């Protein structure tokens, strides 16, 4: 399993320089494939491990994996084509796609060997350190994009840190409470220093992903852990902090020493010159203003150079790549303003000629058409905003119901253990105990089904709140 990570990292490190953020999707699949192909060496390392679950059918595993990998190859190719159109560095994509193609068939074979691979957790972990150095440099391999995507509110991303292997869902959902979504117009706030985030998130993430990735990928693990997986995925996801940190205690001491060396280059170089990272910047109008000012000071969009503009702007966390791509876009916008002004205008003239009436060419008619267009567009936007607010509220409601439901469950459980307690579940009387609450009910319909029961205590809670 870790060998996958190793290989992923090796491939990614090579590709890091060239590939931009948007190709990480394609890369994921290629790494996935490449990684599986490398499973063999690790298997040789642990021949002594036997399969403790004789009834476990590796055939099934292989089948599932290959079928889903079949799907993923579809994804991969489609994402490759779309990303290639956006990318400037296509050769790297084709390189990685080749890897996928060559290993797609071997995936099945490798995967079936998985069951005999690792059974014991601890020895595996002990062996991880030699693999982690490379892994760590990528920050998340196994990290949910959410973790990095939670960085977005500060509007920066480190590319290297965003190579997700996306395993356990919101595993770090609550890890970064400090990442409150801020889309502020404040210039300073629009960019955050990247390294700090990288550092403090590293340890926890690596350990989390080591544990969780193993859980997810290794068949035997699933048999062992399947109860915990199904029984409390909710607490695992929502309140995972407690759970995963205890797990991480094991592996944590092993990580720091080995990853230290790799960490250094990443952290020592300032964000701007870190050649590996090509963070995706989220621009704001204020930042753009500063950009335009800088460009004008340097003599205009043609004369200004990315380096000069970067220096002039003096914005922390801004890299030359950001400025370069932005400058390119800016130049295009200036010297080929609004593509619509060329195209449809011609189209309009030809369609207009279809009509005998000359009046169609009058400014008044055009203005009227535009007015109508605005009406529709305004309407659409209005509806979209309403819809979005509704969606936000629905999810908020869902969260609230979930919480209520869990509280009720809790009080229900207490009722079991303390028969002397009152008949009615009382919400306010039960403080939440630390640790995950057992989840009863298979789906989100749970909260809705229990609504009649919840509503009463909920009302009480509301009254008391």
């Amino acid at each position, binding site marked *: 399993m870790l060998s996958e990570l190793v290989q992923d990292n090796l491939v990614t490190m090579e590709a890091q320089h060239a590939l931009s953020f*948007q190709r*990480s999707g394609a890369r*994921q699949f290629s790494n996935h494939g490449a990684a599986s192909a490398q499973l063999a060496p690790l298997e040789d390392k642990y021949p002594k491990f036997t399969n403790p679950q004789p009834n476990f059918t590796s055939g*099934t*595993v292989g089948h*599932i*994996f290959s079928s*889903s990998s079949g*799907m*993923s190859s579809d994804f991969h190719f*489609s994402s490759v084509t*779309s990303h290639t159109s*956006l990318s400037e560095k296509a050769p790297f994509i084709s390189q990685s796609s080749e890897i996928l193609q060559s290993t797609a068939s071997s995936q099945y074979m490798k995967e079936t060997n998985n069951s005999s691979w690792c059974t014991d957790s601890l020895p595996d972990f002990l062996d991880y350190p030699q693999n982690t150095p490379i892994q760590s440099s990528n920050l998340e391999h196994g990290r*949910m994009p959410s973790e990095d*995507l939670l960085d977005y509110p500060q509007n920066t991303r480190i590319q290297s840190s*965003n190579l997700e292997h*996306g*395993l356990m869902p919101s595993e770090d959902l609550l890890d970064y409470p400090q990442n409150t979504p801020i889309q502020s117009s404040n210039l300073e706030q629009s960019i955050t220093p990247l390294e700090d985030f990288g550092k403090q998130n590293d340890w926890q993430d690596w350990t989390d992903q080591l544990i969780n990735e193993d859980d*997810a990928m290794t068949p035997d*693990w*699933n048999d062992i*852990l*399947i109860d915990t*997986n199904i029984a409390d*995925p909710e607490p695992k996801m929502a309140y995972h902090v407690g759970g995963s940190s205890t797990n991480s205690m094991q592996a944590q001491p092993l990580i720091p020493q080995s990853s230290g060396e790799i960490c250094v280059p990443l952290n020592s170089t300032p964000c701007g010159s870190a050649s590996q990272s090509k963070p995706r*910047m989220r*621009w704001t*109008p204020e930042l753009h*203003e500063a950009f335009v000012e800088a460009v004008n000071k340097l003599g205009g969009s043609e004369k200004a150079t990315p380096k000069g503009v970067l220096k002039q702007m003096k914005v922390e966390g801004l890299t030359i790549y950001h400025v370069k791509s932005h400058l390119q876009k800016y130049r295009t*916008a200036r010297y080929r*303003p*609004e593509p*619509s002004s060329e195209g*449809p*205008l011609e*189209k309009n003239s030809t369609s207009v000629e279809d*009509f005998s009436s000359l009046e*169609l060419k009058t400014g*008044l008619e*055009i*203005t*009227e*058409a*535009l007015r*109508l*267009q*605005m009406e*529709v*567009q305004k*309407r*659409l*936007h209005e*509806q979209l905003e309403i819809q*979005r607010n509704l*969606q936000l509220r*629905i*999810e908020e409601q869902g969260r609230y119901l979930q919480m209520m439901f869990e509280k009720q469950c809790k009080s229900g459980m207490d009722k079991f253990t303390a028969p002397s307690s009152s008949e009615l579940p009382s919400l306010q009387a039960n403080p939440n105990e630390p640790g995950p609450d057992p*989840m009863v009910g*298979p*789906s989100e319909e749970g909260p809705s089904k229990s609504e009649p029961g919840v509503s009463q205590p909920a009302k009480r809670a509301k009254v008391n709140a």
Partner: protein
Amino acid sequence: MKFGKRLKQHVEETLPGWRDMYLNYKDLKKIVRLISSSLEYGKSEAEFVYLLNNEIEKFNVFFMEQEENFIIRHKELQQRIKRVNESEPSSQGEYEEEIARIRKDIVDFHGEMVLLVNYSNINYTGMAKILKKYDKRTGGLLRLPFIQKVLEQPFFTTELVSKLVKECETTIDELFPTVVVAAPEMKEAAIIMAGEGIFRNTVAALMTMKEIRKGSSTQSHFSLPVLNLPDTELIRSFQFNSPIPII
């Protein structure tokens, strides 16, 4: 399959450069079906989440790129307007021409931004639906926490684009002459002219939205209410020459 069909139609109708950027709803549905029959719960879920995250990444990248372009173009349009108003009016005709061009450009620009917000919303809706299907099929509890994460993603935090849209509307109000009651023939001609370009896309998007939100069999308190547009008739009257019916 209702949403899937709507999505497919929308993608076909949408701006060419955007077609690959939408959610792979159909494929994800297939995978959910596959997973529900698999024994490998934990692993399948991990892989499913992996795919979803890739989709999210795709959205984010595209969205932020478009957003960046919009910021630039917004400023440029403002500059153009400033320039044309400040410059010595060489001739009334030329001024009018430039203003007319700016008007067209800014309205289309407005439309494109709204379409991006629409893009964001459709993908979010698709995500919510596929997660719901997943939970239903596998008995998992993926939806609630995962959707919380999605809510915070750049592609769904469309506040900035909405702000630009509103600023655009203000500018447009200033740019257009005071309202003149349009004769019905003019309106008709305008409707015909409107059958192309961005306008066509926005109308299509509006109708798609309405259709998606039509009451379904699985309506719950988690569902969006049915969309009732007062001037549906007006919008329906847009007869496009496209072979693909909007509804």
